[in-house]
């Protein structure tokens, strides 16, 4: 009989720590340990990784045994999470070739699309203000080496 998991939030958090710890152990397995007198590259990472696995294990067990918050309690904000992430990616990919104006407008529009509350006319005005501030402050003011427009 499968008992219902009592605290899926703790369980997930614990599993996350264990997974990261194991990854660190596997990736770092060949890092030299050195001697007692000269501890090598791998000593502290190994100690920390095992500690992480240990504490993650305890949290996982706690999640299995003790009633706690569920993983799906509250709202998972998929739309803002995806859109904000995409907005960051868009800025990173566009800024060098597309220049500041294009990368700003695209990334801010993607971010604004993350919430149903966005009013697009208001956003249009706001983004013009932001672009003016951005160009004036960062390119003219601080002299950052970014193109204003793609054709500059």
């Amino acid at each position, binding site marked *: 009989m499968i008992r219902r998991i009592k605290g899926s939030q703790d369980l997930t958090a614990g599993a996350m720590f264990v997974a990261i710890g194991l990854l660190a152990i596997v990736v770092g397995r060949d890092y030299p340990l050195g001697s007692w007198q000269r501890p*090598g590259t791998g000593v502290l990472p190994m100690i*920390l990784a095992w500690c992480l696995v240990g504490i993650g294990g305890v949290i996982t067990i706690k999640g299995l045994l003790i009633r706690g918050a569920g993983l799906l309690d509250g709202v998972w904000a998929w739309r803002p999470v995806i859109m904000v992430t995409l907005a960051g990616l868009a800025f990173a990919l566009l800024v060098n070739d597309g220049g500041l104006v294009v990368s700003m407008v695209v990334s801010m529009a993607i971010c604004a699309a993350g919430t149903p509350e966005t009013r697009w006319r208001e956003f249009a005005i706001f983004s013009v203000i932001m672009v003016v501030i951005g160009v004036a402050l960062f390119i003219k003011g601080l002299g950052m080496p970014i193109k204003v427009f793609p054709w500059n």
Partner: protein
Amino acid sequence: MELSDLFANLSLGFSVALSPGNVFWCLTGALVGTAIGVLPGVGPVATMALLLPTTYYLPPEGALIMLAGIYYGAQYGGSTTAILINLPGESSSVVTVLDGYQMAKQGRAGAALAISAIGSFFAGCVATIVIAVAAPPLTLVAQKFAPADYCSLMVLGLVFAIVLARGSILKAFGMVFLGMLLGLVGTDVNTGNLRYSFGISDLFDGIGFVPLVMGLFGMAEIMANMTSTERRDLVTAKVTGLMPTREDLKTSAMPILRGTVLGGFLGILPGGGAVLASFSAYTLEKKLAKDPSRFGHGAIEGVAGPEAANNAAAQTSFIPMLTLGIPSNAVMAMMIGGMMIHGIVPGPQVMQERPGLFWGMIASMWVGNLMLIVLNLPMIGLWVRMLMVPYRLLSVAILFFCCIGVYSLNNSANEVLFIAAFGLLGYLFFKLDCEPAPLLLGFILGPLLEVYMRRAMLLSRGDAMVFLERPLSLSFLVLAGLLLAIVLLPNIRKAREVAFVE
């Protein structure tokens, strides 16, 4: 220490802090901090993270003075919204809401705001002097530390941070370990070996502090806030009669004094800081009051005590950062990040190597507090209007400042990719109820701990007992062990009971 030394140090500090450039940065920091503090959903850590890259363009003194200004400005701003619209702008002003908003509803918003400002200012003055008096002897002590002592002190600091962190202690542990691991990514300075860089050349120098905090605190906060459509009822009672009555001043005097002492003490503890101080001060005032039932219904002591305490704590938490180079909370980690951007290694040597910076920063705290009390009260109308900016626009602006800020550090588009990734990670932490602050402390202290551990082992010729043989080191470790035992034992017992009941 001689009294004349104190005056010499402080006058050096004031000569730095009062130079026109630094007054300007102090003012900018305090104003920006207040503006952001007023906005709910953007904490002081996120604000400092957002502005960290701009400090790259300032001289080191100006940079740190501005960062410090943001911090205490944010606290003033947080109390303003707490009193006026029943919404704590910062977590340290959560308790101010209880009685401050009630006072505002009774038409005494002016008195509440004034008392909170006066209390904060008084606490700020005292805390500045405490820092000036305590810092030099502490630095001297710190310079006598052997590497093993330092190592154990960091362990103690991390344990404090875990114990006093919000939420689950176990998860705080996990976050500290994870933060330390992240801090070790990149080239091992001792041996030149690469660690956990996965062949990505941008990771050879380690994970950048700025992309990490921007992602965890900036991007993740946008994601979390965009879902919760917060209500902002602008019940703003007209702020009339800013001057508190003589009666108000008389009842507030002792609470302000007690709050200052309590906050000043709690601020020094690692992991403590303003939030803990304001809560403790409120509890203390309620316990001491002749008629505790007035609390929650507009008792002025409930505003005066916590407000003085959180400001005192905010400032004394600079002491371990300045003298030992050990950050006691996320804000101090941010200050250390600011120092490192300018190539200053935090630690006891800062006071001797850069006395202008050290004392200038301390003096600027007083200057900043004075500016805040003079500027803030007349500007309350403006702050309240700032609340009208809807989050749907704010989030767009924050996103842009995150991206451009990270890009500006090294003109590297790849680092902007990192903040997107750390943003996702930060949101996951938020949903899993894992506080990111301990991770940040681990990130800063991990590499330092390794350096001192290696030195200690080298000096002891590979004898790990050195950590237990040196009295100072041993006492730090014992203290850390005791703290853990005190906190963990009841937890385990309780957990067992719960498990058995089930």
